[in-house]
C-alpha cells in the first residue's frame, strides 16, 4: 500500500474521521457534499494540517502520528497537489510555475526550466510556457497545475476538485486528458470531488463522506449497485454503463444492449442513467421512448418515499418509482417488465 491513513482531526466545531488506503497506481475518489470534510481530509494528507489522532503512512514512511510525536510538514513530504482553482502563482510564467518545485528542491535554474518545458509538453501546453496564469484558459491552467504537481515526482498525488472550475465542454475534454495523464503516474492518487460523474468516471474506488464521517466505500460498480443510505443513493445511485459509441454517434453499445443517446462522444464512454428517469411497464410501451429493454424484477428496496426496483435483462437497470406505482403494476420479484428511458435522460461521457 502506498497510502495508508487513519485520520481524526477537529477544526473548531467540525470533526473529521476517516480511514483509507490507496494502492500504487490506484485512484481513490473522495466524494461528498460541500462542507463534508473533503478538503480537510486532503489537507491532512498533504501535511498542511496535522491529525489530532491517527496515523498517515506514505510509501512505508510514517508522516503523521501524534502518539509517536511524528509530523512531517508539507514541504518535506513527497506529495503533489492540484488545488481547487489551481492556485498558479500569478507573478510567474507557466514554465516557472512548473519549475517552482524543482527549484525549491535545489535544481539549477536551466535544468529546472528544461525539465518544466518537457512536463508542459507532456500535458500538451508547451506553447503556453511563457504565459502568465491569467492569460490561460481554465483547461490550460488545469494542465499547468497538473504538470506543476507532477514535476517533483511525488509518491502521492492529491487532486482537489480539479474539474470544478471548468465549463461543461472543457470539462469532459479535460477529464479525458486527466485520465490519460494519470495513467502514467505510478503512485497513489486521491481525488476530491463533489461531482459523482467525476468520481464514477475517474476513480477505481470511492470513499463517500458526509458531515465528517465515511458513509460508504467500494468500487463505483459496488456503490452504484448498492448504495447503503438514502444520501448515497441520491448522490451516486445511478445506472452506470461502460460502453462504446457506435459509428452513427447516436447509440452506445453496452454488451448486447444498445442505448439511444444523442451526441454521444466517440470511442469508449460511460453512460449514466438516473433511476428516476427509468419508467417501468408491464407491456411494451407504444410511445416515443426509444430505449426499451425487457427484463424481470429481481429485487425491490424501499428508500424513504421511493422504491428502487432492480431489473435483470438485456440491460440490468435500477428504476426508482413511487410505492403507488409498485402497487399499480403489481411488482414483485419475478415480475416481467419493460424498462423505458428517454434518450435525452441518458448522459454519456468519454473516458
Amino acid at each position: 500500500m502506498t497510502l495508508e491513513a487513519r485520520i481524526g482531526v477537529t477544526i473548531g466545531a467540525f470533526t473529521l474521521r476517516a480511514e483509507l488506503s490507496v494502492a500504487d497506481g490506484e485512484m481513490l475518489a473522495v466524494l461528498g457534499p460541500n462542507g463534508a470534510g473533503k478538503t480537510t481530509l486532503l489537507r491532512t494528507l498533504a501535511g498542511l494540517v496535522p491529525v489530532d489522532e491517527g496515523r498517515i503512512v506514505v510509501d512505508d514512511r510514517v508522516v503523521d502520528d501524534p502518539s509517536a510525536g511524528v509530523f512531517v510538514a508539507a514541504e518535506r513530504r513527497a506529495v503533489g497537489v492540484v488545488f481547487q482553482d489551481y492556485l498558479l502563482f500569478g507573478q510567474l510564467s507557466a514554465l516557472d510555475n512548473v519549475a517552482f518545485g524543482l527549484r525549491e528542491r535545489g535544481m539549477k535554474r536551466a535544468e529546472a526550466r528544461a525539465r518544466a518545458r518537457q512536463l508542459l509538453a507532456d500535458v500538451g501546453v508547451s506553447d503556453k510556457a511563457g504565459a502568465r496564469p491569467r492569460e490561460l484558459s481554465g483547461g490550460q491552467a488545469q494542465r499547468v497545475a497538473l504538470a506543476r504537481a507532477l514535476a517533483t515526482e511525488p509518491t502521492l498525488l492529491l487532486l482537489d476538485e480539479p474539474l470544478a472550475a471548468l465549463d461543461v465542454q472543457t470539462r469532459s475534454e479535460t477529464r479525458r486528458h486527466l485520465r490519460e495523464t494519470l495513467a502514467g503516474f505510478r503512485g497513489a492518487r486521491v481525488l476530491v470531488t463533489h461531482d459523482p460523474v467525476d468520481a464514477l468516471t475517474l476513480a477505481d474506488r470511492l470513499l463517500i463522506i458526509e458531515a465528517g464521517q465515511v458513509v460508504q466505500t467500494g468500487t463505483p460498480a459496488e456503490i452504484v449497485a448498492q448504495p447503503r443510505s438514502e444520501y448515497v443513493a441520491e448522490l451516486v445511485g445511478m445506472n452506470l454503463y461502460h460502453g462504446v459509441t457506435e459509428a452513427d454517434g447516436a447509440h452506445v453499445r453496452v454488451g448486447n444492449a444498445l442505448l439511444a443517446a444523442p451526441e454521444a462522444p466517440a470511442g469508449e464512454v460511460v453512460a449514466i442513467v438516473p433511476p428516476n428517469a427509468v419508467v417501468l411497464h408491464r407491456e411494451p410501451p407504444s410511445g416515443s421512448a426509444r430505449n426499451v429493454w425487457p427484463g424481470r424484477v429481481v429485487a425491490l428496496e424501499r428508500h424513504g418515499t421511493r422504491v428502487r426496483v432492480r431489473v435483470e435483462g438485456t440491460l440490468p437497470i435500477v428504476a426508482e418509482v413511487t410505492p403507488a406505482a409498485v402497487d399499480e403494476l403489481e411488482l414483485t420479484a419475478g415480475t416481467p417488465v419493460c424498462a423505458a428511458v428517454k434518450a435525452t435522460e441518458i448522459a454519456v461521457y468519454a473516458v
Partner: protein
Amino acid sequence: MMMRVPARARRSDSSVPVAARVIAVIAVLFFAIPLAGLLWRAPWSSAWSVLTSHDARQALRLSIETSLAATAIAIALGVPLAWVQARVAYPGRRVVRALTLMPMVLPPVVGGIALLLALGRRGLAGQYLDKVGVHLPFHVGGAVIAETFVAMPFLVLTVEAAFRGADRRYEDAARTLGASRWSVFRRVTLPAIRPALMAGALLCWARALGEFGATITFAGNAAGKTQTLPLFVYVTLETGNGDAAIILSLVLLAVALAVLVGLRDRWLSAI
C-alpha cells in the same frame, strides 16, 4: 465584496441632495484655497536663487537622506510587525495595535517629548545608549528616529491589511512544492503584498519628509545636522524671509502631490 453597480448608477446617484453637493464644493474649496494662496504669492522670479542657496540645498539633502533612512528602518521593522499582527493570534494583540498606530493620532510634539524622555541623554533607555557612545538628540540619528516614530504606522497599517487579505492557499501550494518558510515568504507572500508595501513605503516616506514636531523637539534644529526642510521653512518664515518659505513649501507640496498621484489607482486600491 463590493456589489456590482450598473455604470449609469455609478456615474450619478440622484439620492445625494443638492445641499450636500453644495457643502461638498465648500469642502473642496477649503482644501483648494490654501494651495491657491501659496501659488498666488509664490515669488517665481526668486525661485531659482532660493532653491540653489546653500542653506536650502543643505536642508533639502538632509531631508531626503533622513526620510529615506526612516523609511528603510520602517520597512525593516514594520513588515515583520505587520506580519505578526496579521497572522499571529496572541493575547494583547489589540493593545499592541493601538500602541503601534498611536503616533498617527498623537501630536508629533508629544511624540518628540516622549522620545526625548526615553532616548535622551538621561532618558529611560538613552542613558545606556549614551554609555556606548550613541547620541541621538541633536544629532542626525535623532531626526531619523523622530521621523521613523511618526511615519512607520502608515507602513504598518497598509502592509498589515495586505497580509490579512492575501490568499494563504497560495502559501500552502508553495509548501507542498517543497518551499521552506523563508522561500514561501520571498517567492509567494512578498509578491502578493508588494503593491501594498510600495504604497505603505511611499506614504511613510512622504510623512517622514514632512515631519516637523517630533523632529524639532527630539532632534533639535541644528543647521546641517537636524534642520530638515520643514524646519528650515519654519525658520526662514520666522526670520522674515517669507519668499523662501513659500518656494520651499511649494517643493514639499509638489512632493506630496506627486506621491498621491503616483499612489492613485495602482496602489491606493490595495489599502
